Every structure is written in structure tokens, then in C-alpha cells.
């Protein structure tokens, strides 16, 4: 008996007839991935399945009893609890504000910093620095800067005669403040992804367009932007999903306030589960978050398919 190994040479099978090279490779392969896979099943897939069951039950923390309640938790969220829709609205506003601002700024910075010039490394380093800084530190410092009258931002605005609002205590300003500071924290990441994409575009394309007499804007619009489309799509997916995950930033800057004005879905799940111990309800919220993120990913993947054909 003989079988082929991966280099295509014929080798003798080992003595035990069932242990073909192919079988051996399968066993070894699974052994190699088993630590990752077992951990993944226990700490990720198991909990993901469990959360479905949790979301269909009502938990009594005193008696440690659970009762099956069907879709009551979902019904509660979607039709009973007015907080839920405010939270969804907040999450959508947060994403709708953050994603375009982040991407536009990232692209602008990348366009400015993709080609080498004196000081380019300096600027790249500065714009990327918040990415390696902990979200907690960033949120703490900005909370300090954005205090009412004593905050540095308002003190500086006062010197030019502007009476700044109490940023984190007024609902609309608070939302704007957490969006902008989050963009500042994360924009560097998208910037370097765009820089990498820009640097992979051959310069000839641009030169050719310039020789044809295209303006800078036309070159961007007709040559660069279409070539960046795949990168733009990936960045959009990552940034949108990321915006739904944001928790620490808002937890520390506004605590979800004022008047729940910055209470987003990730925070709401945390609050319901670990502050109010509404386990069933929190699990239903987690499922809703899962579905939203999944839907966003699928929609964007479909767009990508369309774009490439």
C-alpha cells in the first residue's frame, strides 16, 4: 500500500494499515489546534450558545431559580421598556456620528502623510499615539479637560470670548463630546490602514492622470478613491462594529448620562446585567447586539461582492 505525501513522492505506509499518512496528518493537525479550539469552545462558543438560553429565561437571583419565559425578555425590550429605544437611538447616533467623522479624518490625514516629507514620522507618531494609550486614560484626561467652568477647554474658549457649555452634563453636547474624543482616540488606526493602501497605489496612475490635465480633485475622485474602495469597505466594517462595542470610554466620561443621553447598547447590557442583575433581559439585549453586528457585517460583505463584480 502506498499513499502520497504533500511533496508528491510515493512513500511506504507505516506498519499499522489504518495509520495512513493522511490520517496521521489529520490527527496531528487536530492536536495542534486543540488547545485553541478547546478554549474557544469553552470560553467563547459555549457562552455564545448559553446566552441564547439565558435570554429565554427569567432569573430569580434569591432562589437561584430560572424559569423559561419564551420571548418575554425580547418583548420587554422591544415593546415595554422605553429605555431600550432610547439606547438604540443613542447607539445609532453614536455610530452615525463616529464612523463618517473617523473615516473622513483618517483619509485626510493619510492623504497628507502618505508621501514622505520632513516631519512626516513626527506627525504619524502623534496621530497614532492615542491608539496605544488605554481608553481609560484617554477618557479620564478628556473628562478633566471638558469640565464645566474649570476645564481647560472652556478656560481656553473663554480667552477668546466664547462661553463654553458644560460639555459632559448637557445631553447633546455630551454625545458630541464622547463621539469627538473617541474619534481622536481611534482615528490613527484607520489612518495607517489608509496610508498602507495609498502607498500600494502605483504613482504612474497619478502621473498619467496629471499629464492628461486632471486637477488634484479629479485625480482623487477618479483615480485614488476608486482604488481605495476595498480598504474603505474594510475600515467601514471594523469601525462600525467597533462603535457598537464602545463601553469603557462612555462609562468613564459620562457614566451613560446625562439623562441617559449617552447610554449606548454595550453600556446598557453591562448596566442591566451587573448593576441591576437582570440576567435574562441583559442576555436578550446581548442577542440583539449580536444580530445588529451580524447584520451590519453581512450587509457590508454583500456591498463588497457587488463592488468587485
Amino acid at each position, binding site marked *: 500500500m502506498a499513499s502520497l505525501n504533500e511533496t508528491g513522492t510515493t512513500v511506504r505506509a507505516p506498519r499499522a494499515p489504518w495509520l495512513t499518512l493522511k490520517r496521521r496528518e489529520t490527527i496531528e493537525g487536530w492536536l495542534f489546534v486543540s488547545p*485553541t479550539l478547546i478554549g474557544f469552545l469553552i470560553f467563547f462558543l459555549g457562552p455564545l450558545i448559553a446566552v441564547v438560553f439565558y435570554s429565554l429565561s427569567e432569573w430569580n437571583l434569591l432562589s437561584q431559580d430560572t424559569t423559561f419565559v419564551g420571548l418575554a425578555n425580547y418583548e420587554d425590550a422591544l415593546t415595554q421598556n422605553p429605555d431600550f429605544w432610547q439606547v438604540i437611538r443613542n447607539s445609532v447616533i453614536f455610530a452615525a456620528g463616529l464612523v463618517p467623522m473617523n473615516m473622513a479624518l483618517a483619509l485626510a490625514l493619510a492623504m497628507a502623510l502618505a508621501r514622505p516629507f520632513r516631519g512626516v514620522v513626527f506627525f504619524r507618531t502623534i496621530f497614532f499615539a492615542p491608539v496605544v494609550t488605554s*481608553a481609560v486614560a484617554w477618557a479620564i484626561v478628556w473628562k*478633566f479637560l471638558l469640565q464645566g467652568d474649570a476645564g481647560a477647554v472652556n478656560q481656553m474658549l473663554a480667552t477668546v470670548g466664547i462661553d463654553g457649555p458644560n460639555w459632559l452634563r448637557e445631553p447633546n453636547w455630551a454625545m458630541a463630546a464622547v463621539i469627538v474624543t473617541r474619534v481622536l482616540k481611534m482615528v490613527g488606526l484607520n489612518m495607517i490602514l489608509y496610508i498602507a493602501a495609498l502607498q500600494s497605489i502605483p504613482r504612474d496612475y497619478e502621473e498619467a492622470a496629471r499629464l492628461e490635465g486632471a486637477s488634484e480633485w479629479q485625480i482623487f475622485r477618479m483615480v485614488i478613491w476608486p482604488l481605495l474602495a476595498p480598504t474603505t469597505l474594510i475600515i467601514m466594517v471594523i469601525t462600525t462594529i467597533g462603535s457598537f462595542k464602545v463601553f469603557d470610554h462612555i462609562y468613564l466620561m459620562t457614566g451613560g448620562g446625562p439623562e441617559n443621553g449617552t447610554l449606548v447598547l454595550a453600556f446598557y447590557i453591562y448596566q442591566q446585567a451587573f448593576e441591576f442583575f437582570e440576567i435574562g433581559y441583559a442576555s436578550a439585549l446581548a442577542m440583539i447586539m449580536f444580530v445588529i453586528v451580524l447584520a451590519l457585517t453581512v450587509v457590508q460583505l454583500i456591498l463588497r461582492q457587488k463592488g468587485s463584480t
Partner: protein
Amino acid sequence: MALSQPQLATVKRTCWMLSLVVVAIPFLFPFLWMISSGFKGPTEIFGEPTLIPRTWRWQNFVEVFDYQPFARQYFNSIYIACAVTVLTLLLSSLAGYALARMRFAGAALLMVFLMSALMVPEEVTIVPNFFLMKWLGVMDTHVPLILLPVFGPHGVMATFLMRQYFVALPKELEDAGKMDGLSRVGIWWKIALPMSRPALAAVAIITFLFSWNLFLEPLVFLSSLENFTLPLALSNFTDPYGAPLWHLQLAATSLAVVPILIVYLIAQRQIIESFAMSGVKG
């Protein structure tokens, strides 16, 4: 007055640089303000804003350690991040190697299966994980903070990063190793790993920072001060009424952030590239 061509270019360049500097202010300023305020006293911190403190209060950096077991918390963060990094490197390179090099039944399906994890936010699985950890009896220990990043979506991302790198490596050396009678594990450890230093470095960097900056998990799993990690400790410098003690909080934040920033400044190229790698593949 008309400007000559080179003069015009200089003006343009200067305007360009100035606008970049203006955009850079909100990125750079918070760091400067954080450090400077960390040296101010509790009253000066609310007075006239000055970048250079009028009196340098070094005392803040002593009080930070008196207020809570900050040295211990600092150490916790370091050792947890190291443990997470070493485990992630080992497991992700092992699994990534198998997925890249070994043709085994079910490998393709396994890839898709693992990849689906990249879309799931941690918030979705945190509640069942809370009960799992409670059942395992590891609440208020560092076990969840080590296990969850290693086996969660971040670990999967690291596995893919390693796989992509192994796929692109030339096979010849490994085949030579096989001829010399090395086992699979031997080939992985002695040949494949040494060749994949750049990928290992990238995984190490993003994993260390991922663990170092983790907030939700410590918040959910830890309750005693001496078990806290840095991000949790930083949010905890408050007076009995819950109002932040800004001078201590900012001094502590500086102590946590500045070492990372120094490493970043030294190795910024390598660090930025690591994030670019993970971003494109993750």
C-alpha cells in the same frame, strides 16, 4: 505683490505645516496636560490653567501609592499582560501553523468556524462567562483576565495573523527538517517559529496592549483593590462621595501611560506596522 514660483511654494508649504500642527493639537495636548496636571496640587489644578505648574507637587506621586495598593496593581497589569502574551503566542502559532501547513480533514471548516468569532463583541458573551467563572470559583482572581483574551476573539485574530504569515513562508527549510527526521512539533518549534519573528513580534505587541488596556473584564470579575489592574485602579481615585481626586488620578494616569508612550516612541515604526498587520487581516 506677486510671489515668485519658489516663494509661492514656500508659503504653501508653511501653510500646510501650520494646518497639520493645528490638527495635531487635540492629539498631543491631552498628554501634555495630563502630565502637567499630575504635578499640580488639589487647588492649583482648578485655578488659572497653566501648562507649567507654578509649584511642582512631587508629593502626588507618593500619595498615589498610599491611596490604594498602586504598586501591586501596576504589577498585576504587567504580569497578566505578559501571561496573556506568552500564551497567545504559543497557542496562536501552534494553531496557525497547523491551519497553514497541514492538510487535515476539517481544516477549512474549522477556519470559517473560528473566523465567525471576529464579529462577536465581548459584551455578548460576558454574562455567561461571568457565571462560568463563578462556577469555576475564580471570581476576583486573575484567571478570567488571562483565559478570556487568549481564547476569545483576540486569540482567534492572532491565530489568523500567524496563519497568514506561515502560508507566505517558503517551505524548503521545513522539508529539509522533515528529511532530517524532525517531528511536526520539532519543525514548528525549531524552523517555522524562528522564521516568523516579525509576525510573532506583531502578535506580541498588539496582545500585550490589548491585555494592558482591558477594562470591561476587570470591572466585571475583580472586586478587591489589591487584585485590580491599572485601568480599573485609575478610575478609582475618588473621594468618599465619588468625585474624582483629579491631582492623584492624573498623576496615576501619567505613571501608567508614560512608560508605554516611551516604548512607543522608541519602537513606533514596529508598533504601527503591527497594528497595520492586524487591522488588514483581522
